[in-house]
């Protein structure tokens, strides 16, 4: 599975490789975020799913109608009109829960990807080697290009900058709306992929991502006391 155009010979070393339209991955990555939001509001916040309804979470058909009807009645029963502050806390909790869900899904995917695509490589010497593998090999596998810039303070912090992050390349809203804020959840799954990939290669780390201007994304990796 690769996002680059196939070059003959078609992977003679890898008989299990097959071609998949990169659009399939695009649509999957797009749907992942609203899916996580829906699952979170239905599973973890069943009583407040109406109040935590996200504005960009409106692309589900029958299930949403069903939930609307159901949750509107329950929400009305549980929340008196003066529940505004409660709602705000709920929103933040809900966002955190979505973050956790997406991050752990990415973690699982990252672990699998590394097992599959590092199998023909020699062992990595140090953390920087692993990070380079991540920036070049893994990134081009998942996002079709390399990381544009890698910075490190040589004390376990790595900052990866992608100036044209693939999930953001077509992201756009009408002028004046908060595109950057709405883009944030789309970074959580990739964060999980990075963390999972590092974990599979023996590096435990925390990964944070931010977006300042579309379509660029910045990932910060903080490794946690790597054992010798």
């Amino acid at each position, binding site marked *: 599975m690769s996002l680059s155009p196939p070059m003959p010979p078609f992977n003679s070393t890898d008989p299990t490789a097959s071609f998949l339209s990169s*659009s399939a991955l*695009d*649509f999957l*990555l*797009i749907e992942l*975020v609203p899916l996580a939001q829906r699952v979170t509001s239905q599973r973890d916040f069943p009583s407040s799913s109406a109040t935590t309804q996200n504005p*960009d979470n*409106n*692309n589900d058909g029958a299930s949403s109608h069903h939930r609307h009807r159901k949750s509107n009645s329950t929400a009305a029963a549980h929340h008196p009109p003066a529940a505004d502050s409660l709602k705000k806390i709920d929103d933040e909790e809900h966002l955190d829960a979505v973050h956790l869900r997406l991050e752990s899904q990415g973690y699982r995917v990252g672990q699998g990807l590394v097992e599959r695509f590092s199998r023909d490589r020699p062992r990595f010497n140090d953390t920087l080697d692993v990070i380079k593998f991540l920036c070049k090999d893994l990134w081009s596998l998942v996002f079709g290009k390399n990381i544009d810039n890698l910075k490190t303070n040589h004390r376990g912090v790595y900052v990866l900058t992608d100036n044209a992050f693939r*999930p953001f390349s*077509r*992201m*756009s*809203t*009408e*002028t004046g709306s908060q*595109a950057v804020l*709405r*883009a944030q959840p*789309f970074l959580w799954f990739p964060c999980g992929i990075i963390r999972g990939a590092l974990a599979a290669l023996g590096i435990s780390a925390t990964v944070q991502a931010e977006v300042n201007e579309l379509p660029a994304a910045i990932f910060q990796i903080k490794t946690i006391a790597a054992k010798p």
Partner: protein
Amino acid sequence: MVVYSFYIFDRHTECVYVKSWMAADSPGAAPVLSASSDDAKLVFGTVFSLRNMVRKLGGDDDAFISYRTGQYKLHFYETPANLRFVMLTDTGSASMRNVLHQIYINLWVEYVVKNPLAPVEHKGGAGVNNELFELGLDQFIRGMM
């Protein structure tokens, strides 16, 4: 060649996008179309009826492509997913079917369908009028004029 206006209708026959380039033109030559929203409904009614009539007369494979009046030419393109693209140009322009197809695959699919922040259904035009789509369309049309 002058492009006067451009419409997109979704599969629920709702007009999800309108753009007009008439401001730059001399008002005498442009067809008289006010900025009211009734225009979109009238345009849709016209192309819908014409398409049905064409199919009835010419069989299911026959496609309505364009019609021309003394003032303007209307170009029509319908995608397999029941999306309808309509463009009004001056009477002298050649077939715009290709152009409408290009708008569909290069702008609509890329910046609306594959846009993570655009909803699947564009009720009231939600998600269609995003910056990338607007910019791409304007550049494309102005590049032809």
